[in-house]
């Protein structure tokens, strides 16, 4: 069935800078903001933008992500003529088959999937950003400007610009230069890693790039510069609003804390819901001894301790006399009576036993950072997990 625009969601990256949190799941499957997983944001944006066909390119540890995405029903993407399609690397006749060797190669290997839908345009998304965006408005601008590619950009500070792919703009408003992480940025217009391509142009560029032995098969490093060199029109789509890359422990923690400030990103907007697949659990129980302030809490939680400035996913337990501050607790985390958790991320099903301490408030010291406990870790009674720690295994008191 012919589609005007389909989306390809790059969800295969390991997310190695999240360390223990991605030791057994892909980054897009990381719980976020209480109710969600990271991939809920691009999938919901697609559904809300009227894009009903989404290919999800998976590679690293895909089992839980595949199960989470399922038929796409929670995002209303399970229609007869659209749908969500998990696209892992596969074998072809006479070849051994190859892993995706870069973002562009992942799309190259799935050209047949795109060709079957014969779209005019292809939207390329990544699975590690928190934002609400109307891709339909971006597509309108892409068409209006007659561009081969439209790149969503956001204004950053001159200092931050050094960490992003930066677009330099000519007098006509089109992009005339792209610099990856420039030492001396000429502009503060940063690429958000969201692209709309006219499919015929992208298709050609992918084939040419594949033939180039020196290419890293990357959209930012190879495909965009290639189109620029060929004199194609590249248009920057200016995005205003909340957008965060959550690829590191600090940025993941920061963005979770942002969810406590509804003025930053309105998740209550009925016209742009962020949808998720929720386990079937009863309402949250706030016990007689509980003190919950400036926090978000999700169904299935049982809270009878103190919770301040924190984000609790479903089925988290905070026992009477436990304290949780400035922390992110993923599904099933359990903080026993008398335990204290501060400035920390607890992965799924982490157990912090009585009298244990995880993390501390910032103290200006060199080694300070958010303390992180990987999934299923038990912090034994009375144990101390220092700030900045990345915990992969159980610890006991020393």
């Amino acid at each position, binding site marked *: 069935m012919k589609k005007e625009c389909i989306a390809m969601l790059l969800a295969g990256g390991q997310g190695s800078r999240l360390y223990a949190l991605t030791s057994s799941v892909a980054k897009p499957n990381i719980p976020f903001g209480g109710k969600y997983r990271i991939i809920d944001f691009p999938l919901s944006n697609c559904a809300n933008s009227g894009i009903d066909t989404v290919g999800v390119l998976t590679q690293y540890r895909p089992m839980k992500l595949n199960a989470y995405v399922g038929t796409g029903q929670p995002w209303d993407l399970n229609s007869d003529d659209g749908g969500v399609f998990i696209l892992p690397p596969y074998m072809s006749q006479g070849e051994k088959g190859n892993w995706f060797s870069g973002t562009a190669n992942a799309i190259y290997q799935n050209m047949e999937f795109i060709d079957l839908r014969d779209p005019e345009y292809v939207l390329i998304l990544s699975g590690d950003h928190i934002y609400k965006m109307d891709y339909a408005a971006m597509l309108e601008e892409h068409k209006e400007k007659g561009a081969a590619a439209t790149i969503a950009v956001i204004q950053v500070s001159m200092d931050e610009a050094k960490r992003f792919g930066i677009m330099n703009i000519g007098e006509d408003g089109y992009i005339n230069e792209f610099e990856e992480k420039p030492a001396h940025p000429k502009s503060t217009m940063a690429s958000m890693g969201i692209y709309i391509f006219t499919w015929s142009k992208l298709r050609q560029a992918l084939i040419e790039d594949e033939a180039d032995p020196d290419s890293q098969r990357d959209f930012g490093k190879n495909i965009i510069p290639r189109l620029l060199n060929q004199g194609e029109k590249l248009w920057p789509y200016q995005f205003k609003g909340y957008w965060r890359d959550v690829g590191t422990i600090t940025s993941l923690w920061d963005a979770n804390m942002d969810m406590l400030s509804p003025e930053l990103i309105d998740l209550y907007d009925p016209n742009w819901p962020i949808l998720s697949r929720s386990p079937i*659990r*009863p*309402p949250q129980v*706030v016990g007689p*001894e*509980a003190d919950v*302030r400036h926090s978000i809490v999700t*169904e299935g939680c049982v809270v009878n301790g103190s919770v301040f400035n924190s984000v609790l*996913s479903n089925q988290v337990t905070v026992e009477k006399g436990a304290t949780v501050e400035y922390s992110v607790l993923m599904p099933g985390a359990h903080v026993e009576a008398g335990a204290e958790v501060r400035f920390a991320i607890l992965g799924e099903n982490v157990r912090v036993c009585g009298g244990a301490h995880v993390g501390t408030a910032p103290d200006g010291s060199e080694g300070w950072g958010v303390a992180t406990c990987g999934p299923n870790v038990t912090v034994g009674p009375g144990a101390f997990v220092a700030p900045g720690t990345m915990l992969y295994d159980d610890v006991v008191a020393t």
Partner: protein
Amino acid sequence: MRNLHGIIYTLSSEPELQQLVRNRNSASLPFGGRYRLIDFALSAMVNAGIPDVGVIMERDYQSLLDHLSSGADWGLARRRGGLRMLPPFGLPEAHSGHFGGCMEALRSVRSYIRDIPQGDVVLCAGDWVGNVDLSAAIDLHFHTGAEITAVCSEGYGPFAHHRLVKDDDGYARRLLFSEGGPGEGLFSREIYIMKKDLLLSFMDFCSEGGKNHFHRNAIAHYLSEGGKIAVYEHNEYARRITSVRDYYDASMELLDPVNMAALFPSEDRPIRTKERAEVSTYYGEQSKVRNSLVADGCYIEGEVENSILFRGVRVAKGAKVKDCILMQDTVVNDGAELRCVIADKDCVITEGCFLAGSPRLPIVIPKGERA
């Protein structure tokens, strides 16, 4: 998957539920922060692996249709079988749409029951709160080879009206009626597993002479003819909700962790309900919430104590809510104070409003009203 067919009957709006059933059948009464009463019966069937469920509806079934929709949230939206909604289609022309009892409800869908492909059915009332392990009851039914098996519980209360006296061999041969007080035997949970042919014979027997009641007419007759009923005992928390007072009491009973554990025992027998696109609940910097059951999507900046908050409820800064039940999307504005209030869906409590009922006589604010 079980080779049985589920039938849930949702009898009319109990008059004692007053405004709570003004626009709905009592089976679609919101309960426990995110459920409707029918979710308990329907989930029990789904959790027992029953593949097909018919829901018989009386008048005022619009909210029930809306809630159940395709049945997808219970895993019952299927190409073969699954959920069937049964608004009355076999009633005489002059009929008011109000059933005199379960047997009349069944008669209204006689051809549906006749065509049920399975040999056994589970018949279940739609207005009980409880989490029965129906799978174990079905095992007993097949194991004993009984024609009919009843789920019964110990105890008494306004819901314990029909009582079965179990003999030493595990079968009941006597049916008693008690008005509220303690009595002999076990009370019927209004869940029966039986041969489909037996149900059809009940319907034939009750087809004339105003015999509309399942217990008083069909079961009493069956036992008088020498029939016997296998009894499966379920002695966990169970309540039938038939009045505002029942509703308030049963809601407040949820604040006892023992009852919560009985209703939501484990991931094996979850109570399923209609999913909403929901956010986690936000607790504001000055919020003070104690001893309450709170669904997702709430926004709480004020004080809440001993209360049940449904999805999407907002409690503004300076508002105080104590001993209340606030249904979906109700808003309590700044400075308002509520005690022993049941606010139905979409109510707005205006700034500075003060309302206090008592546990015996809670104030009910009807759906969509401003107070």
